[in-house]
């Protein structure tokens, strides 16, 4: 049990505030550099696709964004549940900060999907399994954000959000499965986002780089948002007041 306090050192809002504040610029730098590399590889170096020409290149943004949107939802549900189960304030704050970023990635995945669909199949939107699931995932994110915003009492908001996020996380596989079933039932045509071009190594590398870049971006943005939440919620503590005195400004 003695080791646990050390492990939870950064679970203290004040320590997190300082550590994250130090780390954020570096993480941003990583995000920018890696995304430049990934975009360069994807848009300039990777070969032209035989069937789809150059328009396929949007998948270097679309696919990592879709992955991020799904992973972030699970991460959000995880931290929200931890915050609820262990009454860990910081975990709940991190969960709340994750939601807008996750929703943003979902939105990005949706409209990059549209940009892919238009030149390839002539339609701005196709009801394929993945895009439809992304749409429903966006609704889940919006539902979570709407719920936590609507509840004034912080503790009730965090706990209700945690329950909703966990319910959503449990349902996401079921929803995805049912949407795939629906998709195969109703569509004879092979319009599908999953029918991606066969992957050359540069393509895979580019997607990997973009994924790393998105992860770094997500960390940076979520840390920033969490720091703001920490200041807001812990404003009655002395260390927050001391910050204002030292910097000569109140955040």
């Amino acid at each position, binding site marked *: 049990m003695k080791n646990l306090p050390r492990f939870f050192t950064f679970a203290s809002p004040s320590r997190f505030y300082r550590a994250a504040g130090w780390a954020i610029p570096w993480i941003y730098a990583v995000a920018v550099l890696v995304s430049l590399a990934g975009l360069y590889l994807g848009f300039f170096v990777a070969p032209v696709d035989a069937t789809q020409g150059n328009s396929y290149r949007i998948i270097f943004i679309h696919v990592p964004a879709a992955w991020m949107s799904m992973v972030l939802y699970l991460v959000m549900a995880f931290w929200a549940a931890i915050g609820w189960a262990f009454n860990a304030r910081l975990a709940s704050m991190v969960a709340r900060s994750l939601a807008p970023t996750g929703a943003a990635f979902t939105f990005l995945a949706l409209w990059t999907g549209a940009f892919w669909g238009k030149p390839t199949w002539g339609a701005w939107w196709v009801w394929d399994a993945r895009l439809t699931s992304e749409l429903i995932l966006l609704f889940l994110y919006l539902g979570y954000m709407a719920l936590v915003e*609507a509840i004034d009492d912080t503790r009730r908001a965090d706990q209700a959000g945690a329950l909703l996020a966990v319910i959503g996380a449990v349902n996401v596989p079921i929803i995805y499965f049912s*949407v795939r079933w629906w998709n195969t039932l109703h569509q004879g045509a092979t319009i599908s986002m999953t029918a991606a071009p066969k992957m050359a190594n540069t393509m895979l590398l580019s997607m990997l780089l973009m994924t790393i870049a998105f992860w770094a971006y997500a960390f940076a943005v979520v840390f920033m948002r969490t720091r703001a939440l920490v200041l807001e919620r812990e404003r009655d503590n002395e260390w927050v007041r001391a910050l204002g005195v030292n910097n000569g400004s109140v955040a």
Partner: protein
Amino acid sequence: MTPMAALLARDLRLASRRPAEALLPVVFFVVAASLFPLGVGPEEATLRQIAPGIVWVCALLSSLLSLGTMYAGDYSDGSLEQMLISRMSSVELAVAKCLAHWLMSGVPLIVVSPLLGLLFGLSWESIGMMAFGLLLGTPVLSMMGSMGAALTLGLRNSSVLILLIVLPLCVPVLIFGAGAVSAAEVGLSPSGHFYLLGAMLLLTSVGAPVATAAALRISV
């Protein structure tokens, strides 16, 4: 009488004293579904094809519309507090409430659905499939809805919030339920859909009352 049975009896008795309010979901169901031919055109083949989807979406919406009042009345007059510290566990409370909601809004929908089936020109066999699907699916809607209602207790705009929260979760039921009727219409077997609906019913029966109980404790 056990506390759970007493709660169920009480809710049914309260509904019987306000019959107009109790019938609202069914009326909405019929009115909303009837609007579609007016918007889409009376062409028989089209109507028959879109009927399962329309009936199911309208069933979804009318089921969820009556959710706002599921716990709100008890919350505001203090009954919910009393029930939460009563002899019945909060899970039993959730089960009784879901059952009452289903009996009052789900069952009438099932009973009225053949009428809509006829309006849309479905065959008797399809109508049967639709009613059976609704029988399996409406309890799931009530249970999903009760989670949403419990989470949004006492909030402003809770009815819209409930819909936003619960609708995405009800997508599988919609897909399998409407899919069963569509399959029957084209001569395929709907049994796969019904198995999946049954599985959803089982899964929800296990998870939703527990989640609802947790949500009630958070919200009160």
